[in-house]
C-alpha cells in the first residue's frame, strides 16, 4: 500500500536504511575532501586537477552526489511533512528540492566528465 507517494523508499524502514547508508557515504566523502584540502596546503591547480582526474575520485564524487540525492530527498520529506500542512504547497516544495538534487547530480556528472 502506498501511504505516501512523495517519500523516497517504499516504506519507512526502507527510508530509514537509505538515509543512513547515504549518510555514511556523504560522511566519508566530506571527511576525505576536507582532509585533503587541509593537508595539501597551499593547494595548487595541478594538485586539485590531478585529484579529480583520477577515476576513483570521479566515481567517489558521483557516488556522493547520488547519496546526496537520496539523503536530501528523504530529509526534505521529513522536514516538509512536519511543517508544511498544505498538501499542494508541500508537493511543489518537495518537487523543487528533488529537482534541485537531481540537477546537482547532472551538474556533477558534467563537471567531473571533462577533467
Amino acid at each position, binding site marked *: 500500500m502506498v501511504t505516501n507517494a512523495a517519500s523516497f523508499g517504499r516504506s519507512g524502514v526502507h527510508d530509514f536504511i537509505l538515509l*543512513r547508508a547515504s*549518510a*555514511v557515504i556523504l*560522511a566519508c566523502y*566530506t*571527511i576525505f575532501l*576536507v582532509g585533503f584540502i*587541509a593537508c595539501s596546503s597551499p593547494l595548487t*591547480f595541478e594538485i*586539485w*586537477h590531478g585529484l*579529480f582526474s583520477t577515476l576513483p575520485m570521479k566515481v567517489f564524487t558521483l557516488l556522493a552526489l547520488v547519496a*546526496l540525492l537520496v539523503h*536530501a530527498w528523504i*530529509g*526534505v520529506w*521529513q*522536514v516538509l511533512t512536519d511543517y508544511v500542512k498544505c498538501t499542494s504547497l508541500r508537493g511543489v516544495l518537495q518537487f523543487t*528540492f528533488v529537482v*534541485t*538534487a537531481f540537477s*546537482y547530480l547532472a*551538474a*556533477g556528472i558534467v*563537471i*567531473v566528465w*571533462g*577533467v
Partner: protein
Amino acid sequence: MELSEQNVKKQRPVHLDLQTIRFPATAIASILHRISGVIMLFAIGILLWLLNSTLTSAEGFASVQSLFDGFVMKFILWGILTALGYHLLGGIRHLIMDTGRWEELASGIASAKVTFALAAAFSIIAGIWVW
C-alpha cells in the same frame, strides 16, 4: 460539549509562561540538524559552481582563489563549514543512538550538549582556517 469534558478543560493546569519555557537540549539538537541540512542543500549549489570553476582551467582556479580574498566569500565558506560540521556530528550522534546507546533522558541531553560543544569547537577551527 459535555459537562465532563468542560470540567477536564477547566481543571487542566495551563502553563504558557513563555519566559520560563525552554526547549530541552535534545529538541534544539533536532531542529539544528534540520536547519543545517536545509542550509547545506543550498550550499551544495555554491560548492558545485566553485568545483566547476576550479577544474575548468588554471585561470578559473586562480579566480576562485581571489574570490576567497573577500570577506563575503570567506564568511559563506565558514557558514557552510559550520553547518556541515554540526550536521556531521549530529548525524554521528544519530548513528550511535541507532545502536541503542544514549536513548535515556540524561544520556540524550548529555550527548546533545557534547555535540554542541564539538560543533562550536569545529566552527572556531574552521574560522581560523578560513581567515
